[in-house]
Structures are given as structure tokens and as C-alpha cells.
């Protein structure tokens, strides 16, 4: 697989900031979008990176919570999150002008192949959020976005510009019935996809299936992985995934890895 997929090491600039909430809106279903004013972070962040947010009230939850950046605009960054547990429930209560304490930008981010075409983005559930930003970076290039979820309510239908979008749901409640990988296989089978490159973010079983497809079709593939995170900055060695036989840290060495370097057969 081409060398351009090797990911760079620790990011050059990280900050610990308290940023003002400048927008905070429901997006339908369990999703909400938060926009934070953080000039330095905005200046250095790239798509695929994440921030590690203090969502606690009196130490509960005990760890920060990681969220992928979904966009940047001027001095602001944004992320989209699903309300699923104590941390995101607390987060959902933050109001405009309140401050949010976070670390970022963290991790390496995606690296778009300079010549591949089309660029195929595959987002499972909230895994689609980094692609809203990556799409902007791919402006002018041919991009396909495949976005799937269990059912319509878990889809994020914030129809981005400049991409062909295909939705899938396990239960057929919106878009095509089936998995994102069914749609991906069809897309990759087309002769027009010979020079494609695939970028995926979502649950590990999905990433694994995407990685196997990319290998089958011989196209480069990057995956943004998830692991439980305590520190988010490489301090606890908690967020390990096996990559080429050694444990790498999702928060520091990832979250984006070359799909064919990940040891997919490890349990996780």
C-alpha cells in the first residue's frame, strides 16, 4: 500500500482551553451540535482530529469525553454529539456563553490522497461527523459519502454540499436497507472506482469490514478508530489498538490509521 498512508506522529500544537459556547443546537434524534470559540485551536485543527471535553459535574463522569471535530469557521470549531450517557447529558445542558473546558486539537487527522478519485467517505452513526469537515477540504474533487445507521433516527441528515450522498439503514427506515459496506461494495465494483480512496469512521466491526473491502479492491483506505480514553493525550496508554503487531495509541498515534496496518483480528 502506498507510503503516503503512513500517519504523522503527535500533533504539533495542543491547547487546554475554556471556550465560550457560541452555538448549541439540536440536530434531530439524539444529536446536538456545539460551536466553541477557540481561536488557537481553530487555527491548528484539521479534519479527523478530536477534542477531549470535560463533561463532568462534580467529577461525574470521571473522565473527559472525546468528540471528533465536525467543522471550523473563523475562530470557532464545532462538533456534533449524540446524547447517550452521563457525560453527553451534562454537555447538553450547557447554554450559550457558558464555558466548556477542553483539550485539543488531538490526534493526527485524515490525510487525503493527492490524486485518488473518487474519494469515498464512509460514516457509521456519529462516525459521519468528521466527514462534514473533510468534505470541505475535498472541495472540487469527486466525493461520495456513504452514511449508515441502525435506523432513520440515528442518521445525521445534515445534507452536505458537494458530495453524492447515499444513506443506508439496517432496518430500511430511511435510504437503502442494509449496511454501509453493501453500498460500499457496489460503489467499489464500478469501474469508475479503480482509483478511489476510502476514508471511514464508525464502530470497529464496520471499520474492519470496510478495510477488508478496500483490500479486496486494492484501494487505499484510512480508518478513524475509537477506544475508551482516559487522558486523550498519550498519558495513560489506555486507548491501545494493535497496529503492525504493536500497540499504538488511538489518541496520539491515531485516531486515523492506515486500514491495512491495523491488526483487525485482535479482540477489542
Amino acid at each position: 500500500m502506498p507510503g503516503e498512508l503512513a500517519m504523522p506522529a503527535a500533533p504539533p500544537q495542543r491547547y487546554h482551553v475554556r471556550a465560550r459556547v457560541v452555538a448549541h443546537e439540536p440536530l434531530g434524534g439524539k444529536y446536538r451540535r456545539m460551536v466553541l470559540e477557540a481561536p488557537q485551536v481553530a487555527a491548528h485543527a484539521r479534519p479527523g482530529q478530536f477534542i477531549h471535553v470535560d463533561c463532568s459535574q462534580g467529577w461525574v463522569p470521571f473522565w473527559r469525553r472525546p468528540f471528533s471535530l465536525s467543522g471550523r469557521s473563523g475562530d470557532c470549531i464545532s462538533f456534533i454529539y449524540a446524547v447517550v450517557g452521563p457525560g453527553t447529558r451534562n454537555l447538553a445542558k450547557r447554554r450559550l456563553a457558558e464555558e466548556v473546558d477542553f483539550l485539543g486539537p488531538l490526534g493526527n487527522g485524515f490525510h487525503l490522497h493527492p490524486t485518488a478519485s473518487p474519494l469515498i467517505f464512509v460514516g457509521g452513526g456519529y462516525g459521519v461527523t468528521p466527514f462534514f469537515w473533510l468534505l470541505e477540504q475535498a472541495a472540487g474533487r469527486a466525493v461520495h459519502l456513504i452514511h449508515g445507521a441502525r435506523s432513520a433516527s440515528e442518521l445525521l441528515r445534515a445534507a452536505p454540499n458537494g458530495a453524492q450522498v447515499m444513506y443506508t439503514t439496517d432496518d430500511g427506515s430511511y435510504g437503502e436497507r442494509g449496511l454501509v459496506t453493501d453500498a460500499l461494495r457496489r460503489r467499489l465494483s464500478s469501474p469508475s472506482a479503480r482509483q478511489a480512496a476510502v476514508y471511514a469512521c464508525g464502530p470497529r466491526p464496520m471499520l474492519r469490514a470496510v478495510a477488508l473491502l478496500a483490500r479486496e479492491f486494492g484501494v487505499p483506505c484510512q480508518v478513524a478508530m475509537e477506544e475508551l480514553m482516559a487522558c486523550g493525550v498519550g498519558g495513560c496508554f489506555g486507548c491501545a489498538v494493535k497496529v503492525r503487531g504493536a500497540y499504538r495509541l488511538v489518541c496520539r498515534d491515531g485516531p486515523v490509521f492506515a486500514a491495512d496496518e491495523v491488526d483487525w483480528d485482535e479482540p477489542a
Partner: protein
Amino acid sequence: MSQHDATTDRAPGRAPAAPAKGGSAPSLEPSPALDLGVQLGGLRLKNPVLTASGTCGYGEVYGDLIDYNRLGGLMLKGTYLEPKLGNPPPRIVETPAGMLNSIGLQGVGVEAFLRDKLPALRRLDTAIILNINGSTVDEFAELAARLNGVAGLHALEVNISCPNVKVGGMEFGVDPRAAREVTEAVCRASELPVIVKLTPNVTDITVIARAVEDGGAAALSVINTLRAMSIDVRTRRPKLASITGGLSGPAIRPVAVRMVWETARAVRIPIIGMGGITTAEDALEFLIAGAGAVAVGTASFHNPSAPLAVLDGIEAYLREQGMTRLRDIVGSLETALYRSTKMEEK
């Protein structure tokens, strides 16, 4: 109960030279100089606040987020002679006011540490303490010997909570004889001050502490993590791949304070107290119980500036109490009133 207190500037920039907010800002008025210095056997610290081993990597982790030069020292990640792969994931679990970890001492090995990590640390104005590990007494001694004459290393912290392969994987630290043997071997092999880190998973920590003191240790670290476990009831599998792991964080602080207090009364060598320290008030509990210095571990995951906030708060406390030397509070626990009351009851 300690309350969370975010302690950073709004966009502090890299390596802020000024202290983070949240800890008390140093007063601009002239005030009597505070002597925060700590003597741990042969190791001199400019102040009593350290980072706990395994929670700040090899010192590269938070260097861009906080100013390590303000701290008394860094206790680095546990290191073996050889590189270690570490345990398979999942390696961490969130628990009430704490966390489990079973990192399995993933690490680069001593040669890579000396080559890749230490040079950057030499530029820091803080004590650098390497946490050393082995599977046999000889491995400990060999590693300690390898670290002699290395510039920029100020002390060793011997982690006797790692499994002793010779005796079927039982920790060195639960057996006074094994604990003493490792201590003696490292002290014999090393030119550096030797701190030995005790495990809390024992019936009587004072027995181990005395064995280690007799073995020649310059100081003790008290405590490592409590062995613990958590289960995913949906899958009915352990939440850690290694089944059990170590519990750290505020949840264990009352156990840690108790063990520091017991140990301080049992030995004459100084103690570095740790276990769930998140604020200056927490740290002061350890100092008052008898620790000469403290280390901040898990709290840094929540707030990278926690060690600085702890330092600032200790300073503020000493000034408030009209004290000028840190050592005036070390071991200052007042128990007489209570003891006599208790006797009266009988």
C-alpha cells in the same frame, strides 16, 4: 469531597510560564519566603509535588500543556530492561470516582528510553525519577546498574507491584522477603537514591515498609493501585482484557491516606504519598499524615494542570496558616485528643 475546579487559562498557549489560574495566583506583595524544599534521602526536590508514574509517560506527555519546571519532579512511566508490548485492550475502565487500568507496563525498554526520551528531559529544571520494573531480582539489579552514570536521572523508583516470575507471578511487593531482596539488589547496584513503591494489596503495609527500609531504600512511594475488577453485564465479560487491573483515583484516597499514616509511624525514611490526589486539600491530607512529598496521578487525566493547582494550593495553605516551611506540616496530625477520648470510653 473534593470538587472539580478547572484550573486553566482560557487558551493558555504552550508551556505557560505563568501559573495556571485556579490555584491561587502568587501574591505580588512581598511575603516571607516559603521553604517548600524536600529532602528524600539523597534526593533534593525544590517542592513536594511530583507526577505519579505511568500517568505522564516519559515526561513528554503534558510538557506542552503545563510547565513541568514548576514541579518538584517527574516520576516516569514504568520501564523494563526490554521493550514491553503491554496488555491487549480494553485496558481501562471508568469506575465511581476512579478508574481501572491494566496497561501491562507497555514501554520502550531502557535503551530506547536513554536514547529517545531522556535527552529532552535533561533540559528540564525538575527531578527526573525513573520507575523501574523486573520479573526477577536480577532483572531489577541489571536495570539499576545500567542507569548508573546517566546524566539527568536523579533517582529510581522501584515498582515492586510487578509479578515475580520466579514465584508464579505473585507480586514482589506482597512478600516482605522478596520486597527486601529486590530493594537490596537495587541499592547495591545503583548509585542513585532508591525509592521503593509499595502495593496496597497487603494485610499490613508496615511489615513490607520496614522490610524495604531494612533493605536500604532511601524513601517509599505509598501507594500503588488497588487490585480490582469490573464486569460488562451485557456480554458477561470482564471490562479489562486482563480481567483484573489497578484501581486509582479519588475513590482510593481514604485507603491511601490510611496507609501513608501507618507507614509514616513505622519507618524513619521519608514517604511520597499518592492515591487519588486531585486538589491541594487532598495533598495536604497526605502531608499531614506524614508524607514528605506527594504525587498526582489519575487526576491529570481529568485536568492536566492538577499538579500545578496542588502546588499553588499548598503554598496558599502554608501562608494562610502562617507557616514558612513545608516540613512544619509533615506528620502534623493531631490525634491526642481523640485517643484519650477513646480510652476514657473503655
